[in-house]
């Protein structure tokens, strides 16, 4: 017999150790998210997946599933909150979708469309974030970074390389690379690294393959992000256990 909790009125079965997000996605139910990735242990920094659990708010990606929970996700109160959080991320960085190579494959953009974020909402901060084009095969455009830490985790846990890390504090927090020069060319990153594949936005890009798939035919051009929930369902029962590099994890 499996245990069950309620998500927007639906019965969601879960395995012990699963979080609300993992159980929901496995059952084919989408909860909007950005920093969650099925292959990594969730850490709950973007807060886009915030839901109401028995009347109190919690990040669903880190909230342990429990029998009998009443989870509300697709309600205006939570979607309104998500809209604001997405607006905050847009205002924090420099996101110019029309000229971005990731347009159509970008989760932040897809979420913006799906949640119907129609206005900027906040004054943009326009931070100064220079590119790193030093590497012969890879471009880093920090302007688009949403600090989800997925590349940090992928590089440390899967690639065993620690190419990326976070630096600074508060609004000055930013992504750095592991080199005394501070340049990507002096790291041991490779095109085949897992860290190359996990960026939900357009920070880490392989050079010379831009626009090989035309805009309009890309992942989220086909179907909205909410219709692709199963693609994000946990792929490993025990998504990488320990993580001493990423923040916020117990």
């Amino acid at each position: 017999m499996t245990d069950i909790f309620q998500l927007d009125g639906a019965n969601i079965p879960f395995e012990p150790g699963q979080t609300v997000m993992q159980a929901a996605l496995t059952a084919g139910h989408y909860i909007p998210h950005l920093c969650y990735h099925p292959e990594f242990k969730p850490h709950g920094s973007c807060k886009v997946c915030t839901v109401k659990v028995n009347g109190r708010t919690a990040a669903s990606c880190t909230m342990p599933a429990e029998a009998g929970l009443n989870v509300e996700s697709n309600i205006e109160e939570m979607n309104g909150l998500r809209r604001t959080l997405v607006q905050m991320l847009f205002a924090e960085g420099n996101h110019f979708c029309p000229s971005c190579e990731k347009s159509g494959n970008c989760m932040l953009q897809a979420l913006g469309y799906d949640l119907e974020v129609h206005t900027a909402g906040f004054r943009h901060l326009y931070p100064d974030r220079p590119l790193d084009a030093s590497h012969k095969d890879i471009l880093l455009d920090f302007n688009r970074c949403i600090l989800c830490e997925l590349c940090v985790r992928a590089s440390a846990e899967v690639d065993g390389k620690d190419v990326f890390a976070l630096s600074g504090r508060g609004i000055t927090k930013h992504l750095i690379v592991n080199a005394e020069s501070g340049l990507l060319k002096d790291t041991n990153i490779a095109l085949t690294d897992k860290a190359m594949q996990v960026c939900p936005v357009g920070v880490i890009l392989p050079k010379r393959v831009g626009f090989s798939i035309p805009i309009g035919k890309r992942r989220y051009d086909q179907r909205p992000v909410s219709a692709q929930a199963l693609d994000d369902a946990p792929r490993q029962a025990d998504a990488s256990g320990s993580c001493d590099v990423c923040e916020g994890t117990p």
Partner: protein
Amino acid sequence: MAADSEMQTTGLDSILDRYARDPNALLQVLREVQELHGYISSAAIGHIGAKLGIPHARIEGVASFYSFLHLRPHGEYRVLFSDNITDRMLGSQALMEQMCQQLWLQPGKVSEDGLVSINTTSCTGMCDQGPAMLVNGRAITKLTHQRVQEIGHLIRNRTPLADWPADFFRVEDNIRRSGPLLDNSIAPGDVLRAVIESGKDVVEAVKQSGLRGRGGAGFPTGQKWEACRNAPGAARHVVCNADEGEPGTFKDRVLLTRQADLVFEGMTLCALAVGARHGYLYLRGEYRYLLEPLQGVLQRRRDSNLLGKNILGQTDFDFDIAIHLGAGAYICGEESALIESLEGKRGVPRSRPPFPVTHGYLQQPTAVDNVETFCSATLAIQMGAEKFRAIGTERSSGSKLISVSGDCPRPGIYEYPFGVSVRQVLQDCGAVNTRAVQISGPSGMCIAESEFGRKLGFEDLPTAGAFMVFDDSRDLFEVARNFVHFFAHESCGFCTPCRVGTSMLKQTMDKIAAGHGTRHDLNEIEHLDQVLQTSSHCGLGRSACNPVLHTLKRFRPAYENRLKSLDFEPAFDLDGALARARQMTGRDDAGAHLKTEET
């Protein structure tokens, strides 16, 4: 270049050896390198990384998290003015301006000769003797125009800090009212010896005393120790939270100065209760000057067999305490962030549950308590539950130290039984014409005159101890704006709502201050509050809007007087945008300004 990098790695090995090349000691190593060289060079990071087995980028990430660590040369003399509202009320801003002029320097920049930098820092815990500053991490109090001028001369003459007048560094205890805690006559080891001889159950004794945590949250201490004792784990730890960062609070500083034995005795009792062998005192970097005296007390206790192996002859009772210094991060006062920092990482709060009592330091059961809590625990055990409970109120037993600062003639430390009214404290410190009191710091409550009958205690006004007084000459909008800047500066940046939201809130408050505010902005504040309350990762984000909400509710005219009557007004200021051009051309005449059209 080779000589340069050699210079930057000298002395590193002896520091690393002192910490047994333990990667968990990274922050302590970095802090000592900062003290030795004035900054942490890339070469030093490379050297440390190779010896500790930590990637370069991760060390850079840790160093950049803490305000007092610098990755680039930051001046031989690094001057930081304490920027709490109480320092400002005592004139700190004018003093900083004076010093910048004297030394030909802009705030935040290093002088061209690399001699000095001047900036602000969050409250340094000297609110009763401000304005205060830190120079190369050393606290200086009671700043005046004259004192600032003298400091300017000393810096210009490159006088070593050790040769500066001792008077500059004097920190007063300012005890204005004492009670059972401050008046105690417990000799070091007394309580510990009595407990061991009688075989008393410490957890039971603390539970019965009704003692609740003095850090503000008020969790029952006995219950916490019991949970830690019962949690499975290979080892257990005791941590004393002396990261007293809440602006307006300074009672832990006084306890560590005068009652260090009581603190360490409490930690040792806790160790006995939970079965811990290692204890840590996490001392905020601002109290760096207390490190050597505290080390002295620890050594004395080791010599008296109150710490170390077989304490007081008890076989298997081994316990020792190490002091870890913080490096300028308010968030490390949050217990799980503090543990991350103890482990040498960025001080980011963990997701909870699990809580530190089961998964704390090195994922092992850990009891984390405030300085005053450990003192009160020792006292409660010595007095006995009945006598201890007779002090204070039903749900708040014992006494509480209050740090009084702001508009009153007698700022300092006041010990009261719980249940004392705000009015009583105001009367005792001599405050007159009081408009508002900020209870328990920016994350606490701002209350107005009609509420001065309210009582300090967990039943009504819970407090970690800060008590900032504002008289009727003060502008409560500016008070709230100072606190909002504080939260934005101290946000760790982990979660979106707090990282971005506190900056947006700061922008909005600055917009209102600049005279561009509208009703739309007040609505935006309420909206931000909702987002921060419902989705922040920890208490910092959840309370970041409190100063604004509390003052808006009670002192709305302070805001409305500043608003334009329009529904919306852009923050963009055409004339303001020319400021940089004016600075570059050295002009400030009428022709260099755009005139705002009056309509």
